């Protein structure tokens, strides 16, 4: 087994498009690293460079101690699961799984034994003589996994392998892939744009944007301590609420002016982010996750009006319109567009109106009706501040 190292790797396509920019990253031996980001961020290109399906324009890629940058895919000892599975349509399931072993000169008897063992693990025993077109999506996905696993490679590469499955099957396969990876302890690079996959599967998650690595850490740290506006708005569903907050000094207090309200920052918020005090007199981005709001009494928090409630069975999403300008930097708009083009236009419109809708998440016991006036506050230590000029967390 071996880790994967990106040593200042760059990829430029024809036409001057820089898909990956000086990527420096180490995927540790035995780790499942999830690469996540919006479409076009470079995550798939990075994966394909490790596979040898794209040439790196600059820099080196190492698998273990071996520099593989110039090697053919077949010489890298990697296995890949494609988004559309890429099963060979003219071969049976058995032959699909066995193909890699056959190409590496493994004897027929051993191929037979290994294929049957893998098919047993993946529940494919009854399908070995079928062709891919006779299989369901989930079965094809397992054949693709089997084809990768049987080779016992140094690295697994998975390019959005679950994106073509329905939600229920995706959940099952997510757990299965995680289980198999942890059993085999094979270094795995997993590309996805699905938040849930990123947060539940990876030992660590690498967030990418426009070819650049934004932050890499364990999922909980990305959620609790996003490094910049992009990571803050990308990680978490629903996204972190981001509003513009001019900061003023009022004696010893630091006050955020949001709309017509002046809200003093609690001491724990400043203790958690001491550099916030340096931004007095400037506008910062204030971020609060939907699950980190508290409902408070009159005069204690940010006033707003309920415009929508969504009951989700075990929780309730309450959309509250407040008098505040949303953050509409490039990073935030990019995340919004990736979700829904209309959402980005909605953000710009809200900014022009100096009103925004914050999404809050409460338990089902919290009742709220459309039109109700509410006051909101961030739970202690759960307010995030970002420099609007650089996008970085303060």
């Amino acid at each position, binding site marked *: 087994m071996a880790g994967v190292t990106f040593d200042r790797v760059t990829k430029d396509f*024809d036409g001057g498009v820089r898909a990956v920019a000086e990527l420096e990253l180490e995927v540790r031996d035995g780790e499942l690293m999830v690469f996540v980001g919006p479409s076009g961020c470079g995550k798939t290109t990075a994966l394909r460079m490790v*596979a*040898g*399906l794209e040439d790196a324009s600059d820099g080196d890629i190492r698998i273990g101690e071996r520099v593989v940058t110039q090697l*053919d*895919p*077949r010489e890298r000892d*990697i*296995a*890949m699961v*494609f988004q*559309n599975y*890429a099963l*060979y*349509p*003219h071969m049976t399931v058995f032959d699909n799984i066995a*193909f*890699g072993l056959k*190409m*590496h000169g493994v004897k027929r008897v051993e191929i037979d034994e290994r294929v049957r063992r893998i098919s047993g693990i993946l529940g494919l025993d009854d399908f070995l003589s079928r062709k891919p077109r006779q299989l369901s999506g989930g079965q094809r996905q397992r054949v693709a996994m089997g*084809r990768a696993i049987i*080779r016992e490679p140094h690295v697994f590469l998975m390019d959005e392998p679950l994106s073509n499955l329905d939600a229920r099957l995706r959940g099952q396969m997510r757990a299965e892939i995680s289980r198999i990876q942890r059993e085999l302890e094979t270094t795995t690079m997993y590309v996805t744009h699905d938040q849930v996959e990123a947060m539940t599967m990876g030992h660590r998650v690498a967030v990418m944007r426009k070819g650049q690595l934004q932050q890499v850490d364990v999922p909980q740290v990305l959620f609790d301590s996003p490094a910049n506006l992009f990571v803050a708005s990308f990680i978490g569903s629903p996204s972190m609420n981001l509003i513009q907050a001019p900061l003023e000094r009022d004696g010893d207090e630091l006050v955020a002016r949001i709309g017509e309200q002046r809200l003093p920052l609690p001491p724990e918020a400043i203790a958690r982010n001491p550099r916030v005090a340096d931004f007095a007199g400037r506008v910062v981005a204030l971020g609060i996750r939907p699950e980190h709001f508290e409902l408070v009494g009159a005069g204690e928090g940010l006033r707003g009006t309920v415009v929508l409630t969504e009951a989700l069975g075990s929780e309730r999403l309450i959309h509250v319109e407040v008098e505040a300008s949303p953050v509409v930097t490039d990073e935030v708009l990019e995340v919004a567009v990736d979700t829904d083009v209309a959402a980005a236009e909605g953000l710009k419109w809200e900014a022009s109106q100096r009103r925004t809708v914050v999404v809050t998440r409460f338990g089902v016991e919290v009742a709220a009706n459309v039109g109700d006036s509410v006051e909101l506050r961030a739970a202690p230590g759960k307010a995030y501040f970002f420099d609007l000029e650089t996008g970085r967390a303060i």
Partner: protein
Amino acid sequence: MSAHAERRASRSRRRWLLTLGSVLLIAVFLFPIYWMMATAVKAPDQIVVYPPKLVPTHFDFSVWTDRIFKESIFVRYLLNSVIVGVGTAVLSVVLAAPAAYGLAHLRIRGKGALLLLNLSALMFPAIMIATPLFVIFNRLGLANSYLGLILANSTLAVPFSIVLLRPFFLSIPYELTEAARIDGCTRFGAFARIVVPLARPGLFTAGVFAFLLGWGDLVFALTLVQSDEMRPVTAGLWAFFGLNVTNWNGVMALSTLAMLPPLVVVLFAQRHIVAGLTAGGVKE
């Protein structure tokens, strides 16, 4: 008559008209074949008579018994056509397949220009390149040879096969090649083991069209071949054209015979040809 019955009658009339029109169209296209086969067995006095005799009343099989089945040269003509046809098919597919695949999937600088160049090769009629080819082949010792004829016909068959095959390869996902390379194949190995088996209908179609092109060639056969033994059947027909008199029985008899092998090939291959021409039309 009720509205429903009127609609049914109108649909029935439309169907009859369509059927009649289709039969007439088919008759127009098949008539030359019929006329050829009829003339091959007509008595000579019925061939050039006016008004023409659509259905022969007197038959004459002497050209068949005394010449076609007696003189071995006609078998030789047919054999030569088979060799040239099959050779053109094989060479065209072998050359065109990797070219079409590269033009479909590989990142090549100037791909658009290459495609245009390939297409432009189809714009030249055979008569334009026959003489330059004769000069070149003569110097290379390829004139009056099977290889010369195969190469000459391939100058037209290869570009056509590339045009035919490229959309077909485009419909085969490139990911299959990538998966094969990761599984241990070289680029060419992935092409040979994965793409070629999937492209069989397209390759078959290209091969059949190249065979028909080689079989039906007359221009290169007349230009590049000097000896009677090397003539394909298209040029062999000239044996029945005299300075003043033409043996139409013989021309049509040999033509009928010459029609049979490509007819058999097309009948045998028609299922694959349809599959080859329509495959890739629906994305899986």
